[in-house]
């Protein structure tokens, strides 16, 4: 068997193994590659920086644990920026499986790092069922959709909720989204009716679709995948999982590009040999 045939018949498990090695090695030997901040991420950061103290930021946890590696770092970074800027945070989600992720993020950042008070500085309404229908009603009457918080406290007993009645009371809405329901519903059903500032953080697989909404001004910012989250970590000067992950990303990408080039070269060689 020639070298060419041997490569063509390469056991795919060897490729899996090399990709795993490419991801694992930078964890032990960090490459510390530079991370440049792109315009969509910078725009979101600037919008939050421009909000007056006391403004309310709605963060919608529209992802589940499989989206956590990409979206958790962005959620944590945005929360840090909000509490540093003395903004109020209203958390909810369109995914039932995202509820524990929202609680965990608020416990770690709001309570653990910034000692903020629940009900005064931040509030968590957990899962809001109904997707698009819920968002249409949310913008009109928040109290009608969010009747109890995630701990079962009636909305009337939460001090922060006294000043939050409708879409007009949110300075910014950010959908941390990995699918449906998520950013699509926020853009089409909420923003189209109530306007205001809307931004999104996306898993990488969904990000390309949302650049068009950035260009039309329907979104004021976009964080795309782990790369976007790493950029945000740099902006808030708190380096975490996304920054660590970018070294593994980069080495895996180089390897995959090498495989693609190799595959094409072999394809052309084989084609020429057959001629």
């Amino acid at each position: 068997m020639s070298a060419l045939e041997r490569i063509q018949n390469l056991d795919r498990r060897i490729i899996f193994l090399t990709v795993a090695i490419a991801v694992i090695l930078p964890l032990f030997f960090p490459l510390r590659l530079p991370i440049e901040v792109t315009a969509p991420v910078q725009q979101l950061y600037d919008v939050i920086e421009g909000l007056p103290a006391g403004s309310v930021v709605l963060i919608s946890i529209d992802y589940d644990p499989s989206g956590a590696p990409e979206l958790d770092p962005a959620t944590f970074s945005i929360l840090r920026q909000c509490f540093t800027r003395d903004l109020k945070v209203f958390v909810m989600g369109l995914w039932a499986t995202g509820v524990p992720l929202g609680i965990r993020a608020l416990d770690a950042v709001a309570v653990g790092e910034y000692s903020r008070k629940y009900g005064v500085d931040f509030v968590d309404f957990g899962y809001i069922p109904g997707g698009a229908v819920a968002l249409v009603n949310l913008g009109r009457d928040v109290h009608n959709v969010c009747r109890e918080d995630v701990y079962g406290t009636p909305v009337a007993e939460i001090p922060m909720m006294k000043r939050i009645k409708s879409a007009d009371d949110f300075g910014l809405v950010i959908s941390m989204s990995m699918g449906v329901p998520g950013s699509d519903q926020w853009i089409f059903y909420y923003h189209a009716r109530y306007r205001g500032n809307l931004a999104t953080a996306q898993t990488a697989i969904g990000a390309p679709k949302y650049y068009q909404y950035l260009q039309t001004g329907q979104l004021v910012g976009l964080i795309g995948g782990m790369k976007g989250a790493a950029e945000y970590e740099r902006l808030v000067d708190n380096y975490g999982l996304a920054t660590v992950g970018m070294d593994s990303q980069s080495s895996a990408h180089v390897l995959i590009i090498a495989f693609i080039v190799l595959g094409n070269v072999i394809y052309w060689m084989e084609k020429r040999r057959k001629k």
Partner: protein
Amino acid sequence: MLMTEGIWVWIAGVLTLAIYSFLYKDNPLYKIAEYIFVGLSAGYWAVYLFWNFAYPNLFQPLVSEGNYWNIIPIMLGFMMFTQLSRRSAWLVRFPLTFVLGVSLGLQLIAAVEGDVVPQLAGTFAPFSKGALFNTYDFWTSIGYIVLLVGVLTTLVYFFFSREHKGVFGGIARTGVFYLMIAFGASFGYTVMARVSLLFGRIHFIMYDWLRIIR
């Protein structure tokens, strides 16, 4: 102790390895992990949706507040199960018609208000009243021209009522280039997403479970 003592972290670690063992070949460990995942997901959703959605919004207002209007959605909900029997399957049309009607009404407006009109405006607005090159800088203006050419040529590619030949064919082929660039960007982002998932699990194994990295 090097490894964490948390039982749930151990279970999550072992199940992660069990799922990845499929990359070597299909095996009973993978099957067990797969079934646990499917079963747990279904159970979690069912219980969560009942106690956080159906109970507080439908059953509780009906019983404690006497809101008898809620009987209608409850009945529509139960009618979804009528398809389990061939004799009563026709009843499922009522709740399905209701869901389709509401969805269609909502989506029609949303698609026009939230997508079609703003996207059309975003594509053509830069060309109105000489805004191009006057309002925007040189490269932004070039970008808008590239965007407009892309939109029009791609639309031509999807026009199948005329054979893609001659000038028309050339325009359609330009549209194909735009499509290829879009697919390439999506593929690149997809690779990034998948590597992120792999990194997430490997970081969990190395950091949370085995604690061999800091």
